[in-house]
């Protein structure tokens, strides 16, 4: 597969959206998400020979995406958090304003969570992964997935209540 350009193009077409979404939800920056997404696929291309087919491809690439996002978070300076470009969900103009407000509040609440909680929330609610898949992606026991997910939800709910959304 390493030399198969067409196959790689298919993978990019299929996974660029969820990878971008995962990165954006982690980083709260469309530009950073774009750069991370590009890095993720570059790394995936370079490491295709090391991909173990006993795992599903999306598990592998989501892990790269979240690791790269966390690396990006660790490199960021505190002031960078002020420089954010809002990203709107897909939808018609009539829905745009409501979607933007909801997206902004949910994203702000997400950013109050520590990365270990945020990653699980993103994998469950934005990438629709099961507990087992999350466990494989993050290489943590399923019991820890549940613990972080349930606690993360509680923290998220408190943040949304504070913002007036719930």
């Amino acid at each position: 597969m390493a030399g198969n350009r067409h196959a790689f193009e298919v993978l990019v077409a299929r996974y660029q959206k969820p990878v971008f979404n995962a990165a954006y939800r982690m980083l709260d920056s469309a530009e950073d998400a774009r750069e991370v997404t590009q890095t993720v696929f570059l790394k995936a291309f370079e490491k295709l020979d090391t991909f173990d087919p006993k795992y599903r491809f999306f598990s592998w690439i989501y892990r790269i995406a979240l690791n790269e996002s966390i690396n990006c978070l660790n490199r960021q300076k505190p002031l960078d958090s002020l420089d954010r470009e809002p990203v709107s969900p897909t939808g018609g103009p009539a829905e745009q304003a409501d979607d933007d407000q909801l997206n902004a509040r949910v994203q702000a609440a997400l950013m109050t969570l520590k990365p270990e909680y945020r990653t699980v929330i993103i994998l469950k609610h934005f990438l629709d992964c099961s507990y087992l898949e999350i466990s494989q992606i993050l290489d943590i026991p399923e019991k820890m997935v549940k613990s972080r997910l349930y606690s993360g939800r509680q923290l998220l709910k408190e943040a949304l209540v504070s913002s007036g959304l719930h």
Partner: protein
Amino acid sequence: MAIDDRTSDLINAGIDGEISPGERIELDRILRESAAARQYQADLTGLCDTLDATGELAPPPHLQHAILGAVKRRKRSPAPVSAVRSLLGLPMVRYAGAFSLGIILALAVISSDRISRDAFDDVTGLVGTLSGSTTESMVPNGRMISVSSSEIAGSVRLRRAAQIVVIDFDLVSSVPIEIVAEYADPEFWFNGFAQLENTGTRVFVEPGKVTLVMEGKRRYALYLHRANDTDATVDLSFFASGRLIREETLHFRGAD
């Protein structure tokens, strides 16, 4: 409301569909018997519905193109620059060399009938390499704008390589688009232009203004010389069929 951890875990797992038949029976019994548990489940369901309603975000329209382009570039060997770098070892000579080479390479790209991605990357990369900095400094505010409309989509990024300011255009348009980049500060002047595709573009340069006319998927680099580090702006106007569709400003911050 006070519910125990076991109840909380069952309710969470039940909502996620990750519950065994035996646990389902236990959960149903708890929900029948406990108003607090029912309230907790309702609240948690509301939260999950809110998250599900948030929706997927659309990546930039040109992202796939950028990813595949980056993969192609990674497969190629980098052009050797060490010999050139050694010839331009002195800072003053390095700057003069960068300035001259930027013009020469940019003009060579424009005049060539075969404009390749290599040439585009070599020019933009070479400017950074020879200008005395090993990394380009990014200007925080306004360093990139994203454009998304029915006529045009993509990004315009401003970055600096020592005393050369590079404005990268990465755009896709469905109709002919005229882009006007204006810089009123006399300390900015035109230093060169590079393009990836060799057709469908016209460039007009006059003091304080560069006009691009494009259609389709295009990548460009506009080079401006910047003599000092004072703050300045580059105003961008996008026109479709003579109608102004977008205005943006890129900020150059000399301190960054």
